[in-house]
């Protein structure tokens, strides 16, 4: 019998150890797995590489990841805080303590999608002529120069969605999906926090992420996921 339900954040993050590469979904607050990110902060793993569109939401929900210098690498399209002043992660990037690879957002998600789809690399015109493509392999297609981008994979992907069933099928609300489908496909262990695990199978046409990409589902009450 297939049953991907686990009980509690600790079980959801079991096996996430020092040195792990961890993908975190979210665009703004939509789809951000707040309970799992807090659990990552409460755990002891260090030497982490965080792969997320933006680092600011991760610092705001789990500041100890940065104050305790447990994040040593990052891949992101946005490494900037909101408002005045400098966030801890920004200062660590300035100081060289946190190695952050900045990637154009479309290439960021396509590299993850490629990682999950068994495509080792692809060419794109995005970034050609900019410093983000410096030193990289270029090739012309139909007269247009393109840069080689390589796939990204991870040990864990942490997502938040609306509903799931015991088979690991996931349905999203609003704009929660953002990077979740690509990340779910590209991680060895994909963990999804949802407000409700359906007793019945989700309708097949209403599934945003099929359970084949999902290893663990954890039910988190709405109030613990904000």
């Amino acid at each position, binding site marked *: 019998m297939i049953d991907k339900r686990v009980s509690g954040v600790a079980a959801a993050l079991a096996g996430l150890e020092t040195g792990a590469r961890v993908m975190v979904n979210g665009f*703004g607050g939509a789809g951000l797995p707040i309970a799992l990110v807090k659990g990552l902060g409460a755990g002891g793993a260090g030497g982490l590489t965080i792969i997320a569109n933006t680092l600011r939401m991760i610092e705001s929900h789990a500041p100890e990841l940065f104050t305790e210098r447990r994040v040593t690498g990052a891949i992101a399209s946005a490494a900037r805080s909101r408002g005045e002043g400098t966030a801890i992660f920004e200062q660590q990037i300035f100081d060289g303590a946190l190695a952050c690879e900045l990637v154009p957002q479309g290439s960021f998600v396509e590299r993850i999608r490629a990682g999950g789809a068994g495509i080792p690399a692809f060419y794109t015109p995005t970034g050609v002529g900019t410093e983000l493509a410096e030193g990289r392999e270029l090739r012309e297609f139909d007269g247009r120069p393109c840069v080689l981008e390589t796939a990204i994979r991870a040990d864990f992907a942490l997502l938040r969605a609306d509903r799931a069933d015991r088979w690991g099928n996931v349905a999203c609300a609003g*704009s929660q*999906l953002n990077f979740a489908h690509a990340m779910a496909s590209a991680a060895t262990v994909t963990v999804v926090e949802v407000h409700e695990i359906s007793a019945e199978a989700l309708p097949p046409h209403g599934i945003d992420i099929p359970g084949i990409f999902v290893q663990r589902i954890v039910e988190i009450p709405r109030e613990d996921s904000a």
Partner: protein
Amino acid sequence: MTDRLSRRQIAWRAARDLADGAYVNLGLGMPVLVSDHAPVGREIMFHSENGIVGVGPVADAGAADPDLTDAGSRLVTLAPGAALVDSAEAFAMIRGGHVDVTLLGGFQVSAAGDLANWDSRSRVKGRLVGGAMDLAVGAKSVRVLMAHTTREGDARLVERCDLPLTALSAVDRVYTDLAVVDVTASGFLVREMIAGLDAAALRAVTAAPLEFADDVAILAPPVL
């Protein structure tokens, strides 16, 4: 000379050029104001790279859904006919040439249409590239909204950008607080200017050669 345009007036002018039925992506900052000034009677579908085709108005505080945001992380609503997709598909729409227009903010635009709009070389705030590089190479038409000069008075229309580039030869049109300027094969071509500004005065705040259309119009938005 009349006053320089406000940010909303620049957005109003950019909105005049959006056709009925167009799919349009709005960048952070001044461009997101454009949706407030869409011409009456034209149905424009606003695309947001986090996965929305058909962004509606910003949600009322009481009815806001924290799981429905646009690419600027604003809590939004959906327009009639909207579709929700994932980020990879949203960028396939961009790179695949399905988005008609992108309106972007800018720090500098060169006479060749090169755009610099993502890294101001701050030592206080970190770097954010977001989707600008994908939008600048992928949208069918790339238009930039920015003040004609920096706060210090330096020109933003330049021969060559000296800030980090977003894309080469990408920009088609620039809307500033003084003028509407096209980027052509032979450089900048002024289409519209605010009343009372003459060619010499515009050249004085521009760091690249300017040509002027035969029929330069007066740029005169309503008070906004």
